[in-house]
């Protein structure tokens, strides 16, 4: 059973308290109704499924109930880090510098950095979440 650090509770808690919520940094368009079929397909259906580092969402469902983001290695299952929803996507090169070979970073499918129309009111999106 994994130990996961909730960035809100600031504690490592057992996996049982959490629920995975899929890949992170996939932004829902602010004008989704006008999206092309291709863009909607990318947004809704296509996921990176990398061997190596993945950015994913978790919810501390049996704790504070907050959604947050995590960087995890899908080979070792090890969590590299967790961070709050809305915080920017961490720089992989920087976080991997310490203990991972560069090859791991190369395996990551650089998440299509959707050009987000920065809607003024939108403090954070699932994209940044």
């Amino acid at each position, binding site marked *: *059973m994994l130990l996961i650090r909730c960035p809100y509770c600031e504690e490592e808690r057992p996996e049982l308290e959490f629920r995975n919520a899929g890949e992170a940094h996939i932004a829902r368009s602010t*004008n*989704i*109704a006008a999206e092309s079929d291709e863009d*909607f397909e990318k947004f809704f259906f296509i996921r990176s499924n990398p061997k190596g580092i993945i950015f994913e969402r978790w919810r501390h469902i049996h704790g504070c109930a907050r*959604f947050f983001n995590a960087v995890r290695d899908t080979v070792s299952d090890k969590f590299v880090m967790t961070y709050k929803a809305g915080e920017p996507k961490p720089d992989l090169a920087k976080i991997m510098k310490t203990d991972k070979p560069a090859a791991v970073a190369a395996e990551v499918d650089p998440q299509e950095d959707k050009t987000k129309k920065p809607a003024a009111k939108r403090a954070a999106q699932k994209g940044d*979440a």
Partner: protein
Amino acid sequence: MAATHRIAGQGRLTPAKTLRFTFDGQQLTGLEGDTLASALLANGVHLVGRSFKYHRPRGILSAGAEEPNALVGVERDATRKTPNVRATVQELYDGLKANSQNRWPSLSFDVGAVNDLASPMFSAGFYYKTFMWPKAAWKNFYEPKIREAAGLGVAPDQPDSDHYSARYEHCDVLVLGGGAAGIAAALAAAETGARVILADEQAEFGGALRFEAGAVIDGADGWSWAQATVAKLAAMDNVRLLSRTTAFGYYAQNFVGLVERVTDHVASPDRDLPRERLWQVRAKRVVLASGAIERHMVFADNDRPGVMLASAARTYLNHYGVAVGKNVGVYTANDSAYAAAIDLKKAGVNIAAIVDLRDNPSGELVEQARALNIEINHGRAVIRTAGRLRISSMTIQPKNGGGERTIPVDALLMSAGWTPSVHLFSQSRGKVAFDEETKRFLPGAYAQDCVSVGACNGTDGLSASVEEAYAAGAKAAKEAGVKAGKGAKPKVEASESWSRGMLGAGPGAGPDTTVKAFVDFQNDVTAKDIRLAVREGMRSIEHVKRFTTNGMATDQGKTSNMHGLAIAAETLDKPIPQVGLTTFRAPYTPVTFGSIVNHGRGALFDPTRKTAMHGWAEAHGAVFEDVGQWKRAWYFPRAGEDMHAAVNRECVTVRKSAGLFDASTLGKIEVVGPDAAKFMELLYTNPWEKLEPGRCRYGIMLREDGFIYDDGVVGRLAADRFHVTTTTGGAARVMNHMEDYLQTEFPHLNAWLTSVSEQWAVIAVQGPNSRKIIEPLVEGIDLSDEAMPHMSVREGKICGVPTRLFRMSFTGDRGFEVNVPADYGQAVWEALWAEGQKHGACAYGTEAMHVLRAEKGYIIVGQDTDGTVTCNDAGLDWAVGKKKTDFVGIRGMMRPDLIAKGRRQLVGLKTKDPKEVLEEGAQIVADPKQPIPMKMIGHVTSSYWSENCGRSIALGLVAGGRDRVGQTLYVPMPDRTIEVEVTGTVFFDEKGERLNG
């Protein structure tokens, strides 16, 4: 029978403490501290079972957890029977009843042994090729027969009456394995003050010191040192000792699963004690001290009872005081077997001969054996054995061929060397590396915060092992963050050291004759089978393993894997590492379902949810149905009524007068805040901004893909407050869905979500008399149609209790849903019931609720929809806000396939014969005469007998359904075809006049 093979003055058991037990009904005695295996051997019993496939007589191979042969059934009573117990692990208790397995009619005369003669039919992979024709016979004849003939014990036929428990634990240093290395590591860690757990699978700590007679540590013999040191550890507050505890699985982040056998060794267990206890330990550091397992020699007929591992014979002698034979042969490629011969000889047992495959064995143990005048035949091999139920002789030959010689023996000890137990290391995802020089796999790259010490790390010799382990224990404690105290390192003054040995088959194993030289005893896999697998094209050891089943029995190949690998490598003419090692998986040894499930049985298997009115429904004879975790009243039969009659009466009564229905299980979410309406706009298809406070709306929630996810009536209590209801089954996921969007997509919205499902009890009062029933009890709410029209909500009091009163209907008749705080649910229900009685109202259950809503064509999400149904498909386009520019699902529902023509649409179905009730899930076709497979154009989603309509009614999803209204379609059933007419979805009161009736 007397304990004929117990030698006075040998071993550590107390002769006065005798225990009685039975084996296959025969009364025997053993001593306290015996295992079932040692007690049987003390009585001269070697034959304990029949093999899996060939039914060959089998004896006791080992003295530990690796045992592949000596599997027996142990039973206390009808509800406490355990099959496939390793006799070498089962501790003896007074009154123990054990039975042999896989034999009929008896162990010594087993009809199934005919398989041994027919063995050419059962070679590796036989089930893939031998019994393939005719095809139908596989399922009906071959497979059942083969399954009947093969196998081990019989599964118990009654529920296990024992109970099992579980504990979580945390520690700084977890030491797995309580031999010399494990004890030394635990001692070093404990002396620093670290929280230490030391676990070992055996009853007493000491590991190989159990048999290693030559060890001296800190001035005491090895075993005594171990007991003294463990006693010292037991007295320390920071140490937990777990004996009889097997670490079976090593999971992520130093999470280790262990199972403690609490009462399996006790004659009359206290029924309050669990039989086993599951420990789930999270350790900062793990020290693996799992030791090594001796391998057998692979030669013809190496499986006869009486043929066993040399270290096992030594354990039986030095610990249990049991001689495994009176005239013992030894076959080895390794020094350690000499120690067994020497100990037995010194105890007065005749050693017929040592047969050593090596050309020039030398060293201290060899010299000692010579000095004791033991005959040593070096450069020779045992090429076969004789004896039906017990070995009677071994035949030896120079290993490169030459004259044979047969030597009578009644036991044969063998040792091909030692395999480090890297199972847990490998489970931790560490990578093993092959050591060419010593021909063994050793821990290589580590994946977790653990360290291997002693024999499992390939460290040879007691002195080096203890040194390494002590240092590792201290280091682990330091790494776990414990500031050091300090103790004294144990000093090993004398120890044994062994040289290497061999992998693979010896000269007596073939090549490719009909001999059976067993590699895997438990699955009856021979050297020949492995060679055959390679010849038939298996190249990877993973394929060889699956084709031959080598290492796939419950012992997981503890003795066989390395031999199998070496034979495959030799046949392939490749180095061992290139052929590969199979993956080690949990559990290390078999684990009971009981310990895994532990407390989670019966009522504790899954929570049961009951509404506030459950007790009333129970008292009034309700039959309940499970809806998720909820118990819901299904129908309320009166005397003499079956379900059909009760449901018919309830349906008619509701429409004629009124009915009370417990709707408490509906999910309820309160959406509150200045942006509550904006949030609702985004989560539901409907428009909400303009909904006036005090009014309700039927809302539909989509997923982003455009399909219906949930529905429910939403009441707007105030400008900034919505009372949202969800389906019973959808409550939790709808809440999660809402939270997800609120937290991560729309965090700019100032709104709060609160699950209030369990705060409110909900009593639906439905029917023409519903207002009359609630009116006398309600205060502060004007119930007139003008003041409180259909689809409105008011706050006030009922029976003096605060209520949120909804005017809404899931029946099509005038109706109310009375929400009251759950604590008052039953009291208010009883008051309403009393009023209802005056008007001839009834209580109705979920079945009537379903019928009534189907009469009106109201859908149930999850029954009439299945996650691929759009609003348009369900005929609910009216609920989608046409002017809205965004809501979850707005883009998904515009996908080409979701707006294409010919999608399945919800329609009504009337059978031509009004008495015929369709089966839910039945398929619908346009032309019943078409050839099979027919083109299915839809299916029935809901179907009932409607007493109110006087006929059957059904809803279904049919391709292009709304254009087919009036058409006749067909529902093919196994015995007939049913004609149906496609209709609209409303069967009763099509104009909807009764809502105000």
